[in-house]
């Protein structure tokens, strides 16, 4: 049994190199166990260094569909501890059945598609729910912002180029428990994770945002399930407007009822005045 320890949770290139080597040495998925850096040491011994001896003597060609690479690069960011093994299983099977990915009903393929979907959703939610707070501004007027976020999967590397495209002219950091992304105007770099207390506690504009959030909601259209299915409660504690939600829900029915039962008020005189003006002109 070969045990492979990868150097980071999302080390796709490392995984790929080793997978190729393993295949050339005809080591099937059942005889390999893959581990990320955080997985606890098992009963089995140490990981062997696979970049060891052996030139590749086989002339057999090794191809993988491009689609697999694209899917695997995302799937490797998933939380699933067994993802490296499952990816290798697919990699191995693809050599014998190159069109395997077209069959969405296959068990391994449907796992890969499900992972891909989960990652894309997580990235999308990160783009949606990261909330910056202003840290300051330098003399030239260049602003600094910071945000705290808790993604479900290891997606910081996948998700943060989006913020670079959007905010290249401000400095920002996004701190997550496992990794921090830093943009200084020149390079997007990644450092170790941090804590919520690393970023400012509040921001003057947050009051305006909370006011906006409360004002835009129509109490006659209450649909809490629809809201929580798109904005799951796990994200709420990092969203500044979330503490308004319970009272908005609680008062909604009353507000709606009031709109229906309120007596119709006397029309404002402006309307009549405008009508008269129009009549006089025509």
């Amino acid at each position, binding site marked *: 049994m070969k045990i492979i320890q990868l150097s980071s949770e999302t080390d796709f290139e490392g995984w790929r190199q080793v997978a190729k080597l393993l295949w050339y040495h005809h080591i099937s998925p059942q005889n390999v166990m893959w581990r990320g850096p955080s997985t606890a040491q098992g009963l089995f011994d140490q990981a062997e260094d696979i970049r060891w001896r052996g030139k590749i003597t086989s002339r057999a060609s090794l191809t993988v569909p491009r689609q697999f690479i694209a899917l695997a690069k995302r799937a490797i960011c998933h939380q699933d501890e067994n993802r490296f093994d499952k990816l290798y299983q697919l990699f191995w099977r693809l050599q014998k059945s190159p069109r395997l990915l077209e069959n969405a009903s296959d068990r391994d393929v449907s796992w890969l598609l499900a992972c891909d979907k989960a990652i894309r959703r997580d990235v999308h939610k990160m783009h949606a729910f990261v909330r910056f707070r202003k840290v300051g501004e330098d003399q030239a007027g260049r602003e600094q912002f910071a945000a705290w976020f808790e993604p479900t999967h290891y997606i910081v590397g996948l998700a943060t180029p989006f913020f670079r495209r959007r905010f*290249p002219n401000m400095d920002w950091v996004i701190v997550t428990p496992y990794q921090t992304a830093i943009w200084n105007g020149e390079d997007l770099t990644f450092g170790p994770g941090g804590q919520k207390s690393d970023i400012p506690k509040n921001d003057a504009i947050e009051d305006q945002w909370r006011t906006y959030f409360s004002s835009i909601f129509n109490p006659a259209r209450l*649909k809490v399930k629809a809201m929580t299915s798109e904005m799951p409660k796990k994200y709420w504690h990092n969203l500044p407007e979330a503490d308004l939600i319970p009272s908005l829900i609680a008062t909604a029915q009353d507000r709606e009822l009031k709109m229906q039962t*309120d007596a119709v008020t006397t029309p404002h005189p402006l309307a009549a005045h405008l009508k008269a003006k129009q009549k006089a002109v025509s």
Partner: protein
Amino acid sequence: MSMLTVIEKLSILADAAKYDASCASSGTAKRHSVGKSGLGSTEGMGICHAYTPDGRCISLLKVLLTNFCIFDCRYCINRSSSNVKRARFTPAELVKLTLDFYKRNYIEGLFLSSGIIQSPDYTMEQLVEVARSLRQDHGFRGYIHLKTIAEADPALIQKAGLYADRLSVNIELPTEKGLKAYAPEKTGQTIRKAMGDVKQGIVAQKEARRGRLLKKAAVPKFVPGGQSTQMIVGADQANDIDIITTSTKLYKGYQLRRVYYSAYSPIPDASSDLPPIRPPLLREHRLYQADWMFRFYGFSPMEIGASTSKGMLDLDIDPKLSWALKHREWFPVDVNKADQTQLLRVPGLGPLSVKRILSARRVTTLRLQDIGKMTLSLKKILPFIETLDWSPGGLTDMENLRARFTPAPQQMSLFA
């Protein structure tokens, strides 16, 4: 009148804008700010940054520039006869608010409408100025949706198109009769002319792009996100067939990206001309489903109409299922042999599932459990398909098949 703070204005003018549903930050030309001054990007699809308890997403800062208005449309909270508190942003205040929210990643951009003050032209000029300032003074590349004042000068509307990703004019009510009764200052003709002008602008820009001699020659973009419209459902007597007919005519005639159906919602300080009803949310939902059938599933308006009864879509079941129950002769569909059109007609199969089926069956013959892995739920589908190991038998032509799908009658509570 005392000076209102920005927060007070925001509270009034966001509240005033809540009834316009056509505010998704939909697809537009992809842009980013790397290597340039300014800020903002668009990725080709909208992002919902927050959700309110009505299940609606907040993607844009959706406000009115002002809720003062000289028109008196009955269904509108901002009509001249309403006693609602009034406020007005200056363009500079609104620009700062938009940029402050955008930098904190609260929004994708701005959705700006307005009550009509002084005149339609003056109002439209103010709206265009906000968009211009964002684009030119601040290098803003996020999403901008401007409501178009139908009665404004066409030249102003063309100018708006240079700064906005999307323009929309609300058709307001599905029939001319409804419009006359509830929005006497608006006419169907003016609204349709404005939509026609926007369409012309889009067509002209596409032709200019195609006809340019140099590939590199820049052709200024004109509403890359297209135009949309909105109609109110349930305020007047129009039935669902009227609405669907109007809708399909609008899509064809004006190349709209979206038609929004907004369930008539009771407003504070309502006019006595309007029904104090609960918003017909389920009816609105069915209309959206019918709209999808037309746009993505290849149904013709007549076919959708055929699935209604007394002009109204079935509230208990979705319109595609309703159609299928009335056209059993199409079923069962053999998933291993049928073409895309036939597969799209199966209740419970959407475009993505159909795509997966077509792809998977090149590699294997499909069984029932394979279909189960590729769709959300088998229950709806069973009476309508055949697989290698499943045939519905008499289920397809069963007399009361509909009963399988309708919700069980609920015991009414005495204390509701």
